[in-house]
């Protein structure tokens, strides 16, 4: 039984390892995050605005509940990096001229902070520095408020505010094309005419203070200074993404270990039942000698507990190893200065308790049977198994079946529950593989919808300030630009009843060739001339449907507040926003024919030249190349996808192997006499292998459609559990995912079947002549 015990232990190890891996990674990120936030003064409320005098700071400090306040100047700049011809931008954040920041302090990895008054010194984010192989002393160009400047890197740092560095509107970190820079307050203020003023404020609150009421009062205060709406930490972009990650890990920790532990409990049940059945006589003898029912029950329970113990020990070790590996992968995205790997003892205890409970519950019936077996009954042989014609034979297909085939089918039907549970067990292996391929398939689909069907531009250009439509003509006139369309983007708050949400309204031309809205069936729809179109998920948040009237508070310019009818809901997988006809949006803003940026299609040979020209245009704040965004997204996802696919394949293989191996061993044990008899009668090894492995093949193949179904269900559950306003994952599964899942299951099952098949070579043909059934 060594092989079977090992197979079950491997399944248990898989379950416990995934549990430990996910939970310890979550705990590690939690502890690391909390420590980093605490030690470096991560703010609790964040607000951006157009411009306010520094004197407003005192009034902010006077808001009840506010603890510490720090005002800053922030700006987005274009970069000109030697040896890198693609568009790159950065967020420039001010540092106090003297001392360190009060809040959102920097963890300096190397170098130093900036000198007061030096207008060309910057500290850069570590991820950005690593992507470009920058070290303190290196230089690069930046266009700061229309003026080109050479910046000198004096330090490389990390910040709790930018654990995740994603360009506004971006879909994933792009460390080569987006970085964070810190500059002295005076230098930055001078460049943006913000001397004695600020355009960003962060604050902390006193313990127990009501953040919502502080935000309301802060918004009131900042409203006339062009405030864009304050947010609490939970909605701060970097923190938000990290929280969503935790949500995902929690879901995975809930689902996947359960599958493995369930399968292990089933396998233990089968093995213990079989063991009790073959050891009836020994049990009878022990009871005749005076061993009690409890003694016998405990004996078998001990065996179960031993397997669980080995599974827990092995699973914890593997889980820690995988957790550290996963933590390192997360560190590529989430830029913490250090990782504090944390495995709480309670995680191992919970894993052990759940596993033990499941295993004992799974084997309760078998152990009970052993304990309660009366000695006299145990000494009698078991009554012979009852068989009948199989279902196919009852359908009249009997004449088509050879005797070995009938043996296979009738044996499966004799214990239909066991056969079904084996099928379900193997199907879980298939489901795990399907789920691992789901992310890749869904991501491919999301990228296709968002970046190939909805967006057709080669490059999107953002202007520093809203500009007149004439700017579009200027861009159209650039060598290599084939087509240009303007868009208008304004931050806004939507209200419907007591629900509200802050996002962006994007306006583009009704006759656009580059940007499409897609309905629920992903078919392009015309942008209505009036009204607003919302992302379907946003419609859900606000509980609005087409025809409802929404209150729109624009957070820019004249900050108009209007009632706008919801014209339609559209399908979008990344982010949530509203869409309007640009002319209608301009009208609502009471402004002229104004654009915030442009979408361009280009001759790709001229891309570098075009970007260089855009760098020199003061009006242009930055540019993003669509293909670069897609490529970067895949590159950043590649390692984690590979990790998950690799781990999932191993785990799926272990389940399939474990279930088939156990079934095969038990089948062999139950049928060895029969198979040996057939060998004596002249059947070849191949022919009796067909009988043994034919049954397993049927169970494995029958498991595949179930596995596809369970896998699809698992994916739908995961997609539903992780959806948020940041992204929604469609349940998309390609044929190749199903094919790979089937292949892994079939190969694992085949390997385990062949291992057991080798035992057929050692059947005791001589002994079987004398063996009673």
């Amino acid at each position, binding site marked *: 039984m060594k092989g079977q015990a090992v197979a079950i232990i491997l399944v248990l190890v898989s379950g416990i390892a995934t549990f430990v891996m996910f939970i310890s990674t979550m705990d590690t990120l939690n502890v690391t995050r909390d420590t980093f936030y605490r030690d470096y003064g991560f703010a609790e409320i964040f607000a951006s605005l157009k411009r306010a005098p520094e004197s407003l700071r005192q009034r902010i400090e006077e808001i009840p509940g506010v603890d510490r306040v720090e005002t800053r100047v922030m700006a987005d700049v274009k970069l000109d990096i030697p040896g890198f011809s693609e568009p790159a931008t950065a967020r420039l954040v001010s540092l106090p001229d003297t001392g360190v920041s009060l809040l959102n302090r920097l963890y300096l990895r190397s170098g130093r902070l900036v000198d007061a008054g030096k207008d060309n010194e910057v500290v850069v984010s570590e991820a950005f520095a690593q992507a470009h192989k920058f070290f303190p002393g290196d230089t690069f160009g930046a266009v700061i408020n229309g003026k080109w400047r050479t910046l000198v890197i004096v330090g490389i740092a990390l910040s709790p505010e930018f654990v995740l560095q994603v360009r506004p509107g971006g879909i994933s970190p792009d460390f080569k094309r987006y970085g964070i820079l810190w500059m002295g307050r005076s230098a930055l203020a001078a460049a943006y005419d913000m001397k004695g003023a600020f355009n960003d404020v962060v604050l902390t609150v006193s313990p127990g203070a009501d953040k919502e009421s502080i935000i309301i009062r802060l918004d009131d205060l900042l409203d006339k200074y062009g405030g864009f709406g304050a947010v609490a930490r939970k909605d701060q972009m970097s923190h938000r993404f990290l929280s969503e990650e935790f949500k995902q890990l929690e879901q995975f920790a809930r689902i996947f270990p359960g599958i493995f532990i369930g399968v292990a409990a089933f396998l233990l049940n089968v093995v213990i039942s079989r063991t009790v059945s073959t050891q009836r006589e020994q049990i009878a003898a022990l009871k005749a000698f005076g061993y009690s029912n409890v003694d016998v029950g405990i004996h078998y329970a001990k065996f179960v507990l031993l397997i669980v113990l080995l599974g827990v020990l092995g699973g914890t070790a593997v889980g820690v190893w995988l957790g550290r590996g996963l933590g390192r992968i997360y560190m590529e995205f989430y830029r913490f200065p250090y990782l504090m790997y944390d495995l709480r003892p309670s995680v191992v205890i919970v894993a052990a308790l759940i596993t033990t409970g499941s295993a004992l519950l799974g084997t309760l019936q078998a152990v009970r049977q052993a304990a309660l077996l009366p000695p006299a009954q145990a000494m009698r042989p078991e009554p*012979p198994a009852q068989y009948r014609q199989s279902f196919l034979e009852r359908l009249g297909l009997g004449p088509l079946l050879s005797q070995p085939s009938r043996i296979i089918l*009738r044996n499966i039907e004799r214990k239909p529950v066991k056969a079904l549970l084996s099928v379900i067990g193997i199907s879980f292996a298939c489901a795990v593989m399907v789920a691992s391929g789901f992310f890749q398939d869904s991501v491919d689909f999301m990228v296709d919808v968002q970046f190939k069907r909805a967006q057709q531009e080669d490059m999107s250009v953002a202007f520093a300030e809203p500009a007149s439509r004439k700017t579009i003509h200027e861009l159209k006139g650039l060598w290599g630009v084939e087509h240009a369309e303007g868009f208008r983007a304004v931050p806004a708050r939507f209200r419907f009843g007591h629900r509200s949400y802050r996002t962006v309204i994007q306006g583009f031309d009704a006759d656009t060739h580059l940007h499409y809205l897609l309905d629920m069936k992903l078919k392009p729809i015309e942008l209505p001339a009036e009204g607003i179109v919302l992302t379907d998920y946003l419609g859900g948040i606000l509980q609005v449907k087409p025809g409802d009237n929404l209150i729109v508070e624009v957070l820019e310019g004249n900050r108009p507040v209007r009632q706008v009818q919801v014209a339609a809901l559209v399908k979008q997988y990344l982010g949530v926003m509203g869409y309007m006809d640009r002319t209608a949006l301009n009208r609502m803003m009471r402004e002229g024919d104004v654009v915030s940026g442009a979408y361009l299609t280009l001759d790709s040979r001229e891309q570098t030249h075009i970007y260089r020209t855009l760098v020199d245009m003061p009006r242009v704040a930055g540019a993003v190349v669509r293909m670069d965004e897609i490529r970067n997204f895949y590159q950043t996802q590649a390692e984690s996808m590979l990790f998950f696919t690799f781990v999932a394949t191993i785990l799926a293989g272990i389940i399939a192997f474990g279930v088939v191996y156990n079934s095969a061993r038990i089948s062999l044990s139950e049928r060895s006499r029969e198979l040996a*008899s057939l060998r004596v*009668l*002249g*059947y070849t090894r191949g022919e009796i292998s067909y009988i043994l492995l034919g049954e397993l093949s049927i169970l494995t193949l029958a498991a595949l459609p179930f596995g596809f179904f369970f896998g699809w269900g698992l994916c739908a559950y995961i997609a539903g559990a992780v959806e948020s306003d940041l992204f929604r994952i469609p349940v998309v599964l390609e044929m190749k995912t199903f094919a790979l899942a089937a292949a892994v299951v079939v190969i694992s099952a085949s390997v385990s079947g062949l291992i057991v098949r080798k035992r057929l070579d050692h059947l005791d043909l*001589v002994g079987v*002549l*004398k063996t009673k059934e």
Partner: protein
Amino acid sequence: MDQTIAKNDFGSPQAAENIVFQVHGLTKVYEMGQVKVHALRGIDLELCSGELIVLLGPSGSGKSTLLNILGGLDTATSGSVAYCGKDLTRATEQELTEYRRYHIGFVFQFYNLIPSLTALENVTVVTEIAQDPMKPEDALAIVGLGDRLDHFPSQLSGGEQQRIAIARAISKNPKVLLCDEPTGALDSGTGIVVLEALERVNRELGTATAIITHNVDIAGMADRVVHLSNGLIADITRNAQRKQPRELHW
């Protein structure tokens, strides 16, 4: 009247072409750790077509070992075993499987029927792979079980199961029938019914039959009785007249 025959009597006066088995100097030694067990110490024997012999001897005398080697289930340590002139001792694993498949019919002490197959199917499982089998129904009719074709072994008595096993063994039209304690698990009444089936098969089909038993009374139905003791043939006696199974009592 029984005639005691010397142990090197090769069954004359049958002609040489009727000899099915020729065994010369057959030995078999098992190694059980440090201990060597000499199961057979030099057996010389012939079995002729149509003959019914009983291998008689106490436990450990070597009768099962001899049967196993004749049946291609075990290999000799030294000596030779020829089946219709072909040396079995040099046969490969594949050749021995083919030999059992086409030429040998086995009857086990505990019937060894396939529990998931009916009586008819238990016979068909052998005829399906045989070269020149009889119809399974005919085999079952010979042993008097023409009316229980669709019953599973669990629905049949021990005697009925053993007769199905005999039908299975003869259905391939083997040259040789090897029976290891065929009545060992049965009461005397049922055992006699089984022996009658074996006797009928031997008589009607002319199949050379070797029956292992420790039951001396059964020896009365044989042409010759080979007495084994301590791995050697102690004696071979010929029955002048074979008794009918019905005349046997134990």
